[in-house]
C-alpha cells in the first residue's frame, strides 16, 4: 500500500515502538479486525528507527486514511519521509 514512513532518531527506539503500537491499535479499529497489525519497526542504513506512517496516502477500501489523533501525538519526535534508506543487503 502506498504509504510514507516516520523516522525516529537512533536513540529513539522507545518512541518508535510506542508509535508503532499506536498505529497497530488504530489500524485494528479501521479494519475492524482485532489485533490487526499495521507497523514494523526497522533500522535504516543510518541506525535510525523506521515505522510506516498511518495516514495519507494510505488507503483502506479505496478511501484515504485520516491520521488518528493518537498516532499524530505519538510521532512527535519522528520525521515523515517518502521512503527509507535501508541497510545494504547481506552477502
Amino acid at each position, binding site marked *: *500500500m502506498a504509504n510514507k514512513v516516520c523516522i525516529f532518531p537512533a536513540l529513539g527506539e522507545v518512541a518508535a515502538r510506542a508509535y508503532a503500537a499506536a498505529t497497530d491499535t488504530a489500524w485494528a479499529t479501521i479494519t475492524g*479486525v482485532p489485533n490487526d497489525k499495521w507497523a514494523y519497526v526497522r533500522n535504516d542504513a543510518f541506525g535510525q528507527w523506521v515505522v510506516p506512517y498511518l495516514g495519507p496516502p494510505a488507503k483502506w477500501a479505496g478511501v484515504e486514511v485520516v491520521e488518528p489523533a493518537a498516532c499524530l501525538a505519538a510521532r512527535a519526535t519522528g520525521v515523515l519521509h517518502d*521512503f527509507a534508506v535501508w541497510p545494504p543487503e547481506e552477502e
Partner: protein
Amino acid sequence: MAVHVGVRGPGHISRVFGWTPAQLGSSLLGWWDAEDSATITQSGGLVSSWKDKVAAYDAVQALGSAKPVYSATSFNSRPGLTFDGVDDEVTLGSQPFPSGATPSELWALVDQTALVADVTGRFIASYGGTGTTNRRRISRSVVTGVNRANVGAGDGGTEVSSVNSSVDFSGRHVVRGVIRATEVQVDVNGTASATAAVVPATTALRFRIGANSSTTAGGFWQGVIPLVIITGALDSGQAAQLLAYLKARGGIA
C-alpha cells in the same frame, strides 16, 4: 473479514488464447496469477495472501502497511497487484524451487514505474538464501540513466548478474530470467541479454515477490505485478509459447 476477489474466472485466459502456462506440464513449478480470483485473499483492497496455482504455495503479508494493493484494472485494464516501492512484498517462508546449480527460469509480467532518478535496485522476485551470494532474482536497476532489467545468481562467494541493455525497462514488459548451470541471462519481451558466467549456489530458504529474499526485505518493487512464474529449464518451443501468451495478455508488442 477477508474475501476472495472475483473479476474474471480462471478459464478466461484459456478461452481467449487457447494456451495457458498449465500446458508447460512438469516444467511449471510455481505460478502466481492475479487473474485467478481464487488465489488472492484481500480485504479493503489490501492483499494478505497470494497463492500459486501449482501447489497453492502461499506468499503472505501480515502487516497492513506492507500489503500490495489489488485492483481489477491495474495492468492493461486487467487484474494486478500494485507494490509501492516503500515496503510492500509477499513472502513464501520456504521455497521448493531448484537450488544449488540446478537450472530454473523466473518469468514475470510487470509494469515498472520507478523513475530513472531513483537508482534503487528493485526486485520483482527473489528466491534462495538471505544473501546476495546464495539467491536468484529478477530485478530492475538504472544503468547510465536508463531503467534496465537484470537477472542475478550468487555462486556462494559473490553475485553475478546480467543486464538487458537493449530494452528500456520502463512500463509494461515480459521478463524472463534464465538461470542455467553455468550462466545467467535475462530476456525482455523476447530480446535477450548477453550471458554472464556463474555456477549458482542457491540455497533453499524463502521466496519473495516484490522484494529481495534477505532476512529483512529490501529492494522493494515499484509498479504492478500481475503474474510471476517459476519453471525448470524450458525448451525453445515452450519459451516461445509462454512469451506469446504473456505478451498478448499484457498488450505488449
